[in-house]
């Protein structure tokens, strides 16, 4: 053939053995082939001229080799050794606006690939790396399907503003606005589509994201097809059963009866029933989950593709609670124009049907009188569907408006469903500018669209909606977000050893949040009380918009692979602040790759050694879903239920709202020093980082002087806090053999959070019991949300004396003797696991531990015996038998407990049958247990507690949807 030539060569692994089945492709064309059994390949029909061979194989780092093809000749390519991904220093790590070789990193960046993900039943992306990344604390809100997660990187840098990291999926920064009908918007992403998750922790890696980077950045990369790859199809199924692990320790019917008869008033004794109902067992069940996924990938001509679809059906252990998720994803990533245009098209869609049940039953089951029956044939309960309910003490047949409602009725008499849909997509074009070697332009346009729709139904006989004669409501919310980003990148090598990369770009993102104003209906579809009024503008929707606009630049310098310098700068504007839109966020880092020095170059014991120092500033502007315009003086229209009558006319009122015209950025300055190490040919490797993060001008919701504003508190830039910590990561190939391989990984984090300045003491941490009782404070000198309690006095037998507290300041009264006692934050977070392979057999487990976190056991503090009666008595935590308190002692530190724990998150045993059906196929089977065990001294249900709000509350154990133990069988077939 005229004008074409041939190349040949060999691909080997680290042991210099030939690798069969490796894809070798001429970049930008469909010409390619794969290696044969000894690792050699020959590709003919290549147009003459300069080309790049792309050599890729699953589990190994892709290699790019320049070749020059001459007409009619065979060009021999030097043997290429592919390095395994996990330890490869040459591995590409995803960073902000690009990728970098691991050895070139100057910041604190940790990338977890799919091989290292948490296995077993994982239904939301963040669970893939729970316990896997140093400095990252991921806490699920509980065991409900689709439950929200708190992700806290290096302790969180904010007080009232969001502490959620910026999450970027395939280049699209996603919205973390809450969506009606979805507890956790991340569950809309199928974890099976994810290839890697990268966490950027220090400012030198995050500052290029400027305004949203203060709490770290998480980059999610999804799976895609490979150039020239053959057709692959995989199908997997996981079938799981979940069971409650334990129940809140409350009295059983006979114990409860004995207690009431011993201590109760006559009316309390009279209110007891004769049944014996274990309400918690009545509302929970063994739940079934199926997670099925199919994907195909390959390359159709020049077009690499991956198409996947998934179906998840997850039952909660709370009865009538389930979730159905349908997901689909398409990625197309061709390289066009003779290798100069790289295209990345990602489209993801998901649809979730939630069936929430009534989660109020979780708390109701704990406190409901166990001597009462679930149902009763007594006609007085007929109006409530035959469910037993406490009735008004007057005997009028109405419900007792103060009483807890029958937990089983709560579940059975309400239907609470939502449908949420999300699509994220982007088109990214990377074009090598002709005639200017090393210069490329990158354009990224994307969207993130979410729709939340829900309905709430209950019949007129449902006690929870009895006064409204049932309910027949719906709600809706739309989130429309768009993204436009463009950057230019220039790469140049000076002389032999000095490499430069310069990048400059522009980013525009618009978030639109539309809420609908809807009526409140009775079950029969009639409007209850009165129809709602439109908003001030006459519309029945309200639209909030947040626009972010940024200009960024980065310079990377690499001197002889020994000295690395990174500088970034971003100017970011936000619509939340006006007219002070823009904040400026610089960062700089240097690294000394000691391994590159002559004295270590040939050292075989030390395979990597690098010192990193970074400094930078990042910002935060996310004041939460209800604070889009904190600077704006405006007036809000009241609803029709908050009108005011003057004369015979009712007026919808207009209220001037609190605002702060001077509100601006919260700024975090991060100092980071790190050491990357590797020994024994990379068999032992990891890193150690030390950091300090100072946040100034905290966006704090604080008390303001009376008469100085239009409320008693508002958003101001006040206060400062600091997080100091150390992170260590160790990975080790303990055994590396032909058949037996054992790898162990562990990470440890120490973090100290301290508010360094606040003008006042802010009470936070509302508890259950009374109205408005709080037990935590934000106070200078202490960790955010530290507990604020009274010091209990005990008798000589160690029994707490009711209402007796230490007079700490010696002024004769203990009413003012509150003190800061412990923090809900762990001092140490540990994670680790092992992966043991023997032939086709695989055993993997993940362990997590938090140390030094304290919990206020609100279940116990509510267990006092009050002889007051409103016609019913509530069941008590077993604590009531210990303390014998007869009145609320909510502020006693007696109820504080150490919440340190060690949890085995997952254990998986798998067997890979290999090429069972035919060549190139693969079949594997796995058994997994999720939440295998928890070792803790904590007496409550679960020592991991987070309650979502603005901000989230930690360490107050009120009621938690129990995290179940889950047993999973998985089958995976690859063709």
């Amino acid at each position: 053939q005229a004008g074409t030539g041939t190349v040949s060569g060999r691909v080997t692994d680290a042991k210099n053995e030939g690798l069969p089945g490796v894809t070798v492709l001429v970049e930008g064309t469909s010409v390619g082939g794969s290696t044969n059994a000894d690792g050699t390949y020959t590709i003919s029909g290549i147009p003459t001229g300069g080309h790049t061979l792309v050599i890729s194989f699953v589990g190994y780092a892709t290699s790019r080799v320049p070749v020059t093809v001459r007409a009619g000749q065979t060009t021999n390519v030097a043997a290429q050794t592919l390095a395994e991904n996990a330890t490869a220093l040459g591995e590409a790590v995803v960073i902000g606006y690009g990728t970098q070789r691991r050895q070139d990193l100057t910041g604190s960046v940790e990338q977890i690939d799919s091989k290292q993900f948490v296995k077993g039943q994982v239904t939301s992306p963040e669970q893939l790396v729970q316990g896997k990344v140093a400095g990252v604390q991921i806490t699920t809100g509980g065991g409900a399907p689709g439950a929200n997660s708190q992700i806290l990187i290096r302790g969180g840098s904010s007080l009232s503003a969001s502490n959620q990291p910026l999450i970027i999926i395939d280049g699209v920064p996603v919205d973390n606005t809450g969506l009606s009908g979805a507890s956790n918007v991340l569950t809309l992403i199928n974890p099976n589509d994810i290839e890697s998750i990268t966490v950027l922790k220090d400012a030198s890696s995050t500052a290029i994201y400027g305004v949203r980077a203060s709490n770290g950045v998480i980059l999610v990369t999804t799976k895609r097809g490979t150039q020239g790859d053959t057709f692959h199809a995989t199908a997997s199924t996981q079938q799981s059963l979940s069971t409650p692990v334990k129940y809140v320790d409350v009295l059983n019917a006979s114990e409860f009866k004995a207690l009431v008869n011993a201590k109760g008033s006559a009316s309390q004794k009279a209110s007891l029933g004769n049944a014996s109902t274990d309400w918690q067992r009545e509302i929970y069940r063994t739940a079934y989950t199926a997670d099925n996924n199919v994907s195909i990938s390959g390359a159709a001509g020049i077009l690499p593709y991956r198409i996947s679809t998934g179906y998840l059906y997850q039952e909660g252990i709370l009865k009538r609670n389930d979730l159905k998720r349908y997901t689909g994803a398409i990625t197309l990533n061709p390289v066009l124009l003779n290798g100069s245009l790289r295209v990345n098209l990602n489209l993801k869609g998901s649809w979730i049907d939630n069936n929430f049940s009534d989660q109020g039953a979780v708390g109701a089951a704990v406190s409901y009188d166990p001597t009462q029956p679930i149902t009763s044939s007594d006609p007085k309960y007929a109006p409530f569907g035959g469910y037993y309910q406490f009735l008004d003490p007057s005997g009028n047949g109405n419900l007792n408006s103060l009483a807890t409602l029958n937990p089983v009725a709560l579940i059975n008499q309400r239907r609470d469903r939502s449908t949420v849909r999300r699509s994220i997509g982007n088109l990214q074009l990377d074009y090598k500018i002709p005639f200017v070697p090393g210069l490329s332009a990158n354009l990224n346009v994307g969207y993130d669209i979410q729709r939340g729709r829900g309905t709430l139904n209950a019949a007129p006989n449902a006690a929870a909606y009895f006064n409204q004669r049932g309910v027949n409501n719906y709600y809706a919310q739309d989130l429309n977000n768009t993204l436009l980003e463009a950057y230019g990148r220039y790469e140049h090598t000076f002389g032999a050893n000095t490499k430069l990369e310069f990048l400059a770009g522009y980013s525009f993102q618009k978030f639109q949040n539309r809420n609908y104003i809807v009526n409140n209906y009775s079950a029969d579809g009639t409007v209850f009380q009165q129809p709602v009024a439109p908003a001030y503008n006459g519309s029945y929707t309200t639209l909030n918009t947040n626009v972010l606009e940024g200009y960024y630049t980065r310079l990377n310098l690499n001197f002889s692979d020994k000295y690395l310098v990174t500088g970034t700068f971003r100017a970011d504007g936000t619509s939340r602040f006006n007219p002070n839109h823009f904040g400026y966020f610089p960062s700089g880092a240097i690294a000394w790759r000691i391994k590159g020095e002559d004295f270590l170059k040939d050292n075989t014991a030390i395979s990597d050694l690098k010192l990193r120092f970074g400094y930078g500033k990042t910002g935060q502007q996310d004041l939460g879903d209800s604070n889009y315009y904190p600077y704006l003086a405006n007036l809000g229209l009241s609803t029709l239920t908050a009108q005011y009558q003057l004369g015979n006319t009712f007026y919808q009122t207009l209220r001037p709202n609190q605002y702060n015209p001077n509100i601006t950025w919260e700024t975090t300055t991060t100092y980071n020093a790190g050491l990357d190490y590797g020994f024994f040919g990379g068999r032992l490797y990891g890193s150690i980082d030390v950091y300090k993060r100072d946040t100034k001008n905290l966006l704090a919701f604080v008390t303001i002087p009376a008469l100085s504003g239009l409320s008693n508190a508002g958003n101001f830039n006040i206060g400062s806090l600091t997080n100091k910590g150390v992170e260590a990561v160790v990975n080790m190939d303990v055994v590396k053999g032909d058949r037996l391989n054992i790898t162990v990984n562990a990470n440890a984090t120490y973090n100290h959070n301290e508010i360094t300045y606040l003008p006042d003491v802010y009470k936070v941490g509302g508890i259950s019991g009374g109205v408005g009782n709080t037990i935590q404070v934000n106070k200078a000198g202490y960790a955010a949300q530290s507990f604020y309690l009274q010091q209990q006095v005990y008798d000589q037998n160690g029994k707490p004396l009711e209402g007796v507290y230490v007079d700490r300041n010696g002024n004769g009264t203990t009413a003012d003797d509150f003190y800061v006692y412990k923090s809900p934050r762990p001092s140490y977070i540990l994670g680790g696991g092992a992966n043991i392979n023997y032939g086709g057999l695989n055993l993997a487990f993940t362990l997590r531990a938090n140390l030094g976190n304290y919990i206020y056991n609100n279940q116990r503090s509510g267990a006092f015996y009050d002889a007051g009666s409103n016609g019913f008595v509530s069941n008590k935590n077993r604590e009531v038998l210990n303390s014998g308190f007869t009145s609320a002692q909510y502020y006693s530190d007696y109820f504080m407990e150490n919440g340190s724990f060690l949890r085995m998150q997952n254990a998986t045993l798998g067997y890979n049958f290999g090429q069972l059906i035919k060549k190139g196929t693969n079949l594997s089977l796995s058994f997994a247990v999720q939440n295998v065990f928890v070792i803790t001294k904590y007496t409550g249900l679960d020592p991991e507690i987070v309650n979502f709000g603005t901000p989230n509350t930690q360490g107050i154990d009120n009621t938690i949807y129990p995290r179940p133990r889950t047993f999973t069988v998985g089958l995976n077939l690859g063709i």
Partner: protein
Amino acid sequence: CTKDLNQAPDYSANAEVVYSDPAQIQQVLARLYATFAVSGQQGPAGQPDITGIDEGFSNYLRQYWQVQEVTTDEAIIGWNDGTLPKLNTDQWDANNEFVRATYDRVFYEIALCNEFIRQTSDANLSKRGLGSDAANTVRVYREEARVLRALSYWHALDLFGGGPFATENDAIGTTPQYKKGTDLFTYIESELKAVDAAGLLLAPRAVYARADKAVCWTLLTKLYLNAKVYTGTDRSTDAITYANKVLGAGYTLSPNYSWLFLADNDKSAAKNEIIFPITFDGIRTQTYGGMTYLVHAPVGGAVQPAAIGINGGWGGLRTKPTLTTLFPGGATGNADARQTLFFTKGQKSSVDTLTLFSNGYLVLKYKNVTSTGAAGSDAQVNGGSGNFPDTDFPMFRLADVKLMYAEALLRGGSGGTAGTALDQVNEVRARSGAAPLAAVALNDILDERARELYWEGHRRTDLIRFGKFTTGYNWAFKGGVPAGKDIESFRTLFPIPNSDRTVNTNLPQNPGYN
């Protein structure tokens, strides 16, 4: 694209538009009144006016009522919420969140009024191009805002003995200076007299619930009657001057005492007695504070909620024997219409345990039923939720002014005679079927005020004026002991909440609270 960084919501209003339109200005004015009734812009709860405490809990009327009543011989509340028990036992400190909520609501109202008066200044009205008719209408609103502001400043004076001070002339963002009680008294007095002299306020009774001339006069009467407490100088003669104006303004006593507290008190003959109500509506003015609280909280035990027009009781408020024994025959007597509103079945007279609802008789004064026995608009029989009453709160009413007039005379004020004092008291008594008094002395007034005005939010002020709040007179749980004991004299004032003193260092603490 940079102009995209300028975002503003179209579902809320900006000041330039609102204050150019008299109809919208009236909506802002309505909001100044609503502060006493609701807790935020979304009834019954949501978009709160103040934060840091449960919305319904911290409602203006609920808090004001609570600090005036449960601290006294008239009422007790059994709930364990935060530092609420410390109000019952007169043991509050500067961190008490209910004292703080009261303070925050009072000054919130003043801040809203300042903003309104600032925005509706003559300069702003002409700048925004309002015609002369429109401007004149708005000027009346502005005068009403001044009265409402004076009302809240009076609350600040009465409860806190002074406090931060700002007017429309102080820009938002300015940390206010402290104004001590005597100066605050002078300010309120001069402000109300200036408004009265301008003569722009509506005529008495012209429009129900507006702050008209009679409201201004009643407030002046109250200010002067208590002047000795506030300034050390007796102003009884001035009290009589303004009481006389109210007495001559055409108000008439409701033919039936109980009607004053029923769901149709804005429509029945009761409205002819009410000088200034806080209005509520079961459908249109919903809150978990205000009248919702006053109607629900005393209901429990054997009370039939449906008879009160509600879905159920909250089992919290009761009264003490110190109130019921002021009536001949006590709580079970029926000679006096005012004592028939006590409920005793299943309850005992004495309060031995603070949290026990059966301890103490109940007061079923406020009901969500009308004078003809019909249930309120949100009652279950009318297809409602049974939560929210229509009943308006009579903050100022004629009987109170009659008793103030008599008291001012008995305190030595000039402008009337002892005979007219006795007449005023006996007119009030006669309405309820109580036997006429042969003679009236100053101390009789305190008891008569309890009989006539119990649970209407006057008691603490009255006891202080009569020197009986801290020492020499005890009631259950006063000072924290079941029998009651004397409390420190400084407790006639509440502390300036530490929450505000921390952020405003201009504020001194009241004596005894440091």
